[in-house]
């Protein structure tokens, strides 16, 4: 019996979800009284995994795995799970992980719980808490299979320092041929994405037009945040579809979500509810978003944002 956690990386660097997944796996391993093995693909420096509690690392290095391909990656994780006789496999809720998870569940004959937000409340039966109805509710679910696959909701558990051994061994899986070919990848580099960022700055129709998005971008820059928008903003073509968040767009589970000129419709709130702290800036004190937010400013975005940028710059300079 052991726990396998799959560590996501980007350009060879471990992502925060990898450290969060390891922290979660370690806490679970303590309950189950077993070891945590982390699996990396094309990561050269695996040292940090030790600090979050990995006892062992299976390190895959293979130039043919340059691009993520769901059926190939899920097959590698299945091979690793068998290698360490994993009874629980932990992955993240990134777009890539959600893509391969159902394939992996089939390969492992594992019950799969996606959007898991906490440690199991009981091990036998194995009961976990996950979100349903696009974050409008939770449910308590029992996984009835021998092997369990858990997709951890991003930022739900957090990263926690632990002590592990992290003995690294290289692992050479057999690569399964795939007839799905990745032809090209277009990715913004050097900019935080909605999925990874700790802070997201989001604009709605209250910003009046695409020409005003410089303000949102500048605020995001100061905060090292990703930018997002409400659905009508992307429907109107002011911003790309990839920035549309909400029930029918991307989910946002970040530490700080700042909503500017967004009314707070139920479909918008559903998608961003999982964020820890919500700040709203809106000139209408009756905007429904104020009921869902932690902090709010009633005011005109065009006056508030420049001041906020200026004050934040001063704050950053002072705390640097």
């Amino acid at each position: 019996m052991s726990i396998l956690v799959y560590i996501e990386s980007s350009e060879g660097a471990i992502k925060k979800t990898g450290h969060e997944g390891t922290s979660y796996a370690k806490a679970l391993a303590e309950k189950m009284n077993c070891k945590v093995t982390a699996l990396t693909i094309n990561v050269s420096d695996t040292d940090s995994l030790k600090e979050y509690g990995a006892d062992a690392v299976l390190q895959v290095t293979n130039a043919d795995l340059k691009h993520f391909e769901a059926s190939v990656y899920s097959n590698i994780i299945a091979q690793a799970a068998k290698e360490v006789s994993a009874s629980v496999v932990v992955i993240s809720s990134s777009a890539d992980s959600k893509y391969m998870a159902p394939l992996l569940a089939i390969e492992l004959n594992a019950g799969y719980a996606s959007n898991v937000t906490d440690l199991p409340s009981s091990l036998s039966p194995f009961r976990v808490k996950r979100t349903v109805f696009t974050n409008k509710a939770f449910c308590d679910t029992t996984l009835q299979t021998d092997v369990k696959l858990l997709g951890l909701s991003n930022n739900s558990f957090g990263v926690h320092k632990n002590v592990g051994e992290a003995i690294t061994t290289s692992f050479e899986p057999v690569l399964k041929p795939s007839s799905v070919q990745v032809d090209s990848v277009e990715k913004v580099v050097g900019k935080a994405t909605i999925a990874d960022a700790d802070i997201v700055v989001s604009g709605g129709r209250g910003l009046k037009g695409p020409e005003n998005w410089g303000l949102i971008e500048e605020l995001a820059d100061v905060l090292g945040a990703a930018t997002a928008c409400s659905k009508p903003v992307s429907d109107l073509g002011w911003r790309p579809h990839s920035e549309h968040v909400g029930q029918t767009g991307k989910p946002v589970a970040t530490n700080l979500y700042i909503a500017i000129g967004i009314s707070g419709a139920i479909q918008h709130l559903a998608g961003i509810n999982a964020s820890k702290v919500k700040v709203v800036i809106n000139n209408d004190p009756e905007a429904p978003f104020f009921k869902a937010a932690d902090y709010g400013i009633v005011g005109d975005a065009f006056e508030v944002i420049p001041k906020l940028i200026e004050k934040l710059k001063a704050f950053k300079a002072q705390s640097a």
Partner: protein
Amino acid sequence: MKILVCISHVPDTTSKINFVENDTQFDQQGVQYVINPNDEFGLTRAMWFKEKQGASIDVINVGLAQTESTLRKCLAIGADSAVRIDAEPLDGIFVAKQIAAYVQENPYDLIIAGRESIDYNGGMVPGMIAGILGLNFVTNCTHLSIDNNKATAEREIDGGKETLSCPLPLVIGGQKGLVEESDLRIPNMRGIMQARKKPLSVLPAFEAAPDTKINTFYKPAEKEAVKLVDAKNIDELIDLLHNEANVL
């Protein structure tokens, strides 16, 4: 080309989410049911294939009799026939096994499902169908074109998009982008009349077991009231975010 569109019958996005029977059942009272939004994009893209390249479209749902109104709506939009597998959709794997068993007997070139449903929202069914049947699979699919036997698909990834290609048969998890919202169709009178004559067959469930069981539902804890900060006092907001919320 034979296309199968998987249709999930879900509470409309404005629905209030409540639970009954000791929080073990979703409260259906006063709830309007609709085609899952992601599936509607998929069905509309299927119509595009039918009209521009020639295709037949079947829709399928795993559910009880109440989902038939949603299947009829799909027929009115333009699907040729509908199948309902008569079973309560117990979990993602159960639904996927039903659809996979049906497809094994009735092969398709293209199976379109949604990236995720807005109720159960596991994002499981399309990938599991592909996994069970060993078919090619692309999810978060924002564009799909088919030339002869070759599919080219775009997939939304964190921070961008990628282009993939593969031969048919293919399973996709679709979403907005497959078509635009303005392309979605509201069934017209003629469509509704025709839909009455189109076949809607009800099949018994295949032998399959779920992997998971939902014990209870619960709603997030009530929120504390928002703390309002004066627009003239932005320093206070920064102080709260830094010292109280610990997010700066």
